[in-house]
């Protein structure tokens, strides 16, 4: 029954699996797809990704090599035998994948990914700059507390697209010097930033890919995210949660500049009601 060469279709399929696996791995390994990283916790996120790339890459390559090998080898004919496995043999076979994947996956979550997760969601470092970002269809509004360092009261009823986009309450003394900008975020390099997140209408997601920041903004909830930009430059702010027909163009600019320049810039900004 056994023939020396497998049929052409088996060789083709085996070759397909091998080439598929090799090209896939090459595509991940040879090109650095990730955008530059510009935040303190960013390398932690990237490390997690690279760890999973390596682990899954090995499993993927080995799995496909075996699959291709079996297809090629066992298409040559032969006389299979009916030999059911004893439960004991079955369980001992299972032990390998169970152990390997439990360890590999939980190491990713806890050991490699854990520290970065805690950085993002842990306690806020002292001396952080607090700003507010408000999402609305299809625009980003940014508020700085102004010279008094306090955010003034806002109310939905006061919101007006042109005259008062975040709904500042004029009567609140703390509100008068609040700085409101459209679509642009200035941040000091090297200083921790806490962003209060609000939405005026639907879900949005505050995403700055280069800073490895992504946090949904849920209307009705005061959201929060924190990070430390460590590399001066100009980055992009994107909305990462479908928010309507203009979702794709809900972009913004993030300017990270050295602290003195940032301070100077901030002093030059007039309050919304000034």
């Amino acid at each position: 029954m056994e023939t020396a060469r497998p049929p052409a279709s088996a060789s083709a399929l085996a070759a397909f699996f091998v080439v598929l696996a090799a090209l896939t791995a090459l595509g991940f390994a040879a090109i650095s797809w990730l955008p530059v990283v510009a935040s303190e916790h960013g390398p932690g996120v990237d490390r997690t990704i690279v760890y999973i790339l390596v682990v899954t890459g090995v499993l993927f390559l080995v799995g496909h090599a075996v699959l291709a090998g079996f297809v090629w080898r066992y298409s040559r004919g032969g006389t299979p035998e009916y030999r059911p496995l004893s439960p004991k043999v079955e369980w001992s076979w299972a032990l390998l994948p169970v152990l390997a994947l439990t360890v590999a996956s939980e190491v990713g979550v806890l050991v490699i990914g854990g520290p970065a997760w805690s950085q993002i969601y842990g306690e806020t470092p002292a001396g952080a700059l607090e700003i507010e970002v408000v999402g609305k269809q299809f625009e980003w509004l940014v508020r700085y507390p102004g010279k008094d360092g306090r955010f003034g009261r806002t109310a939905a009823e006061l919101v007006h697209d042109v005259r008062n986009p975040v709904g500042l309450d004029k009567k609140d003394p703390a509100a008068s010097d609040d700085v409101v900008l459209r679509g642009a975020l200035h941040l000091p390099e090297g200083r921790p930033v806490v962003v209060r997140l609000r939405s005026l209408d639907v879900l949005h997601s505050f995403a700055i890919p280069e800073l490895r920041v992504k946090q949904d903004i849920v209307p009705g909830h005061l959201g929060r995210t924190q990070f430390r930009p460590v590399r001066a430059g100009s980055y992009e702010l994107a909305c990462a949660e479908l928010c309507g027909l203009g979702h794709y163009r809900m972009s913004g600019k993030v300017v990270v500049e050295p602290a003195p320049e940032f301070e100077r810039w901030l002093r030059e900004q007039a309050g919304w009601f000034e």
Partner: protein
Amino acid sequence: MIESSGHEGGHEAPRGFLRRYVFSTDHKVIGIQYFLTAVVMALVATVLAMLIRVQLAWPEKAVVAPETYVSLVTMHGTLMVFFVVSLALVSGFGNFLIPLHVGARDMAYPFLNMLSFWVIVPGCVLMLASFLVEGGAAAAGWTAYPPLSALGKAVPGSGLGQTLWLLAMALFIASFTMGGLNYVTTIVNCRTRGMSMMRLPLVVWTFLISAVLGLLSFPALTAAAILLLLDRHAGTSFYLPAGLVFGNETLPHQGGTPLLFQHLFWFLGHPEVYVLVLPALGIGFEVIAAFARRPPFGYRLSVYSILVIAVLSMIVWGHHMFVSGMNPYLGKYFSIVTVLITVPFSVLGLNLIASLWRGRIRLDAAMLFALGLVSAIGIGGLGGLYLGTATSDLYFHDSYFVVGHFHFTIGTVTFFGIYAGTYYWFPKMFGRRMDEGLGRVHFWLTVTSLFPMFLLMHYQGLGGLLRRTYDPTVYAYNAAARGLNLSITLLAFGLGAGQIVFLVNLFRSMFAGERTGENPWQATTLEWTTESPAPHGNWRREVPSAHRSPYEYGRNGGAEDFVLQSAEKA
């Protein structure tokens, strides 16, 4: 209330075209009806996908309007998940196969079965009709997150289109629930003599678990949809908080939270993935066993893995919401349990591969797709680790990595399961074979376009390209990633063309395929002990009993290398 068919003895085929092919209670006819309905819906969903790809390849031409684009992605996802894959794989093959596999003359409740089909038909009509209403079809994503889905002011599709979407989904859930009840009762109570649970073909196990998962998880979506309908039309505030502003006007809603909907939706949404993927794996086991002439490796192990997956799938829904602002400790919990799903999944994947070991592989079209399915499980399953690990999901969430990932899992694995199943059981459905040559062409056109296409989407996600983006050129950082869009679109055209080959083969073979006998693949399970196509009542003679394991391939001695499950022990 509901009664068993009894059916014993009284299995005279009904007369008249209507009773026989339209309002039939025969599980095989109903299965084929579901399958053909899914084919129609698949054509629509594919056209939507092509429009999406055209827009993405040439965004500067603005082929569709932005509001149309969000409707396209919403409806493509909804149709594919609920009205194509669910219908063809779970409702179609489930109906056709379960009674034949367990040795029953029909489902436990044939009338309920017919009802389940005739409930889904208006569901399909409503879904398709929503394209024609003012504002167009639903546009809040297949996940229908409020407030976007709750307010007509938020997006045009959230007008009448979203209402029709919700009603159609309600009909779908009703239909799926009736089907699930039938599956569970038929598998547990209507097995033939000797068909113990551990003698069930693996595909039947997957249908059983899939049905149980469906029964337990779909009610969450029902509740979510009822509350959403009320928020939309009755002015309640389940999901809508105070202070929503549209066009300088504050809405009167109070105190609701959009996160509530997300939790309810994903309590269904995640198990739904396994509702669809498990039966595809089951089909993979059947086909690989028959074409490798080996019993599937580790039957018990596979059954236990399926059970573990079912349990885990109900407690991990939060991994879709890592960046939603949920408690970070909760996020960590969801991450820890989520990645554990890779463990039973890898056991299943390895069992599939090991089933080839020392086999005598014959690469017919059914087997080609089953092997493609194994590869897709590998890619889809491993890709899940990136998204299940909270820290990396932070970067990948709502990117094209997610799109590529789920197109491998609930896209490729399920479709390959459907294709493998179609080539394999077509003789039992129609008494004819599908054309082998066309089948191979279909396979090669499919894999050479599909795999690179969805793999490129993973790279795009790594490059930060965000999903549901009408025109990605708005951003500069994603330049490398979006540069792949044209290639992906061309591959999508290739994939579409490959499916035409399948459709031609399917409909041509129904009428002109080579006729086959009872058991064209020399397979072992009970459906191959009756004529092709199987008659009304499934067996003209007595229903066969199960006397052995469902996979006695490679038995030496005698002219044949297999022993039917119904063969008595010597």
